[in-house]
């Protein structure tokens, strides 16, 4: 099968791959490039575990074709910490016991990051709405909501 070239930045690094036409971004990231932080939970756009950020917008990598990602900037949870220092959202998830099995966590953090990037001081309802596309089957939603609110507060304190 003819391969399609695709080139984008992933967490600030240039990446280039040849993929089969029809390859999902999730597959390209995990199996070609080796960033396994996005997870495949349903491969049909319902669980949110594969969430990544493309040019600042929250996207489901299982429904995004890799060949449509030429020239974009992709952020994943694997790229959030800088020089070993956790992102405020990562720290808040850690401290608020907002993880159980951990499978939904990278997707949750992606959804939360896009929310806080656009809405630095969200209401609880806005947090719930922002996370509504991400399923946690351990049903630990409340600590996750609290972690996002905590991260928002620590961000605004840092900014002040």
């Amino acid at each position: 099968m003819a391969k399609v070239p695709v080139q984008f930045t992933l967490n600030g690094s240039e990446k280039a791959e040849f993929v089969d036409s029809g390859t999902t971004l999730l597959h390209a990231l995990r199996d070609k490039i080796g960033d396994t932080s996005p997870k495949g939970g349903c491969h049909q756009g319902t669980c949110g575990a594969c969430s990544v950020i493309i040019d600042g917008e929250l996207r489901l990598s299982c429904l995004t074709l890799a060949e449509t990602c030429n020239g974009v900037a992709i952020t994943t949870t694997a790229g959030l910490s800088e020089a070993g220092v956790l992102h405020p959202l990562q720290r808040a998830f850690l401290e608020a016991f907002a993880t159980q099995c951990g499978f939904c966590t990278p997707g949750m953090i992606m959804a939360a990051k896009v929310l806080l990037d656009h809405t630095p001081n969200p209401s609880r309802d806005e947090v719930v709405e922002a996370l509504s596309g991400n399923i946690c089957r351990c049903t630990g939603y409340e600590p996750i909501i609290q972690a996002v609110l905590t991260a928002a507060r620590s961000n605004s304190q840092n900014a002040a």
Partner: protein
Amino acid sequence: MELRKNYFADVRKDDLHEIGQPRPRSDSPGHVTGKTAFFADRNFPGMLHLKMVRSPHHHARIRSIDASEAERHPGVVRVLTAKDVPHNVYTILILIQIGPEDETVLADGKVRWKGEAVVAVLAETERAAQEAVAKVKVDYEVLPAVFDMEEALKPGAPLVNEYHGQNYYLYDSGECRKVRFGDVEAGFAGADHVLEQSYQSSPIEHAPTETTGCLVVPEGNDRFTCYTNTQAMFFTLDNTSIILQMPGSKLHFVGGTVGGGFGGKVDVIVEPIAILGAKLTGRPVCFIYSREEEMQISSPRAAEKIVIKDGVMKDGRIVARKVTGYTDAGAYSRHSPYGAQKGAGHYPGPYTIPNVWIDTYCVYTNRTPSSAMRGFGVTIGDFALEVQMDKLARLIGMDPLEFRFINAYRDGDMKAHRQPTEGAALIECMQEASRAANWPVAEKFMAMTSYVKGA
């Protein structure tokens, strides 16, 4: 977190350092950075994809299987059928002598539930494997099926599983697990009221976000490394060893990181066939359930039917309880005989009842095999029991919480299955619940204690 130190003050130790203190989880740093390695977060060069041909029928005889077209499909490396599996008929709990072996790794001559694995296809890509699955021709003779437990127990019902010979699990106590304590009929005869109610539940799927699966790598030293999300590493190791007739020393299982299990990943389903595929092809193999397979194929919590008959006095004492429980194992045992047995011990609930009669049946039907899920065997029972308790309280015009205090077990009370109660704390829990829910009860109940000195 608040620790109530007034309870059991004379028997408890208060030099606790960990309890009541938050401690960081050791796995959380990996979770929040995406570094936690779930089984599928690995990639091996040349890895094959395994996909299953599954039965479209609830119950059917297999007349023939023609996989020749699938074998010729581009990208297909190997097709596996029952004859390729060294010890094809197994049952998970044979490790603790709960037999007979009653389930096939790949169907042999018959399918007993819709979705049963019939033929495994190994191909270079997931897509090629899926396409080849559609090209396997299986000729079925559809048989009558039974889906209802009580229908399955009637004479003349279609026989679901020939390895059992009848549509129930044969315990050493006979057709059901039995508990006999006191004289239940005399209890009913002396009761002020008798209430019989029936409770039913449907199967429940765990639906973990990470689907069931494994990756297998044939190693240079003639061993196989299996990366798996099983919740039962040693059950899986030992059953795989039996199924593949391969010493355990050839098998290296790597796991412990599970993306949600809830009991849904304790069966031994994906690993043996994936390891067999790796052995016969010499290539790494991945077998990962699609979301559809996770929802339709993986074992759910069993459907249950529970019939409870209670005799109760106007003063609130339950004097007799008779329970008949039915657990729908589906087509194969898996963990259900154990679940049904747990129910037998559990149906008196945390209450002291002098006359008890319990029968619990583990029934085979042509439904998806059920298995473990969070408190299986007791969770649905608890729902039934506590609804029954509310109904009994209403029947005699008593507050439902006070009614439970009257019947609550305390240290030293003999349970129906003849284990004396020890370490009970139901009364104390209900006292706290009464405060927390602002549901006051009479002072005499707030003064009760579970702890009986010397009991």
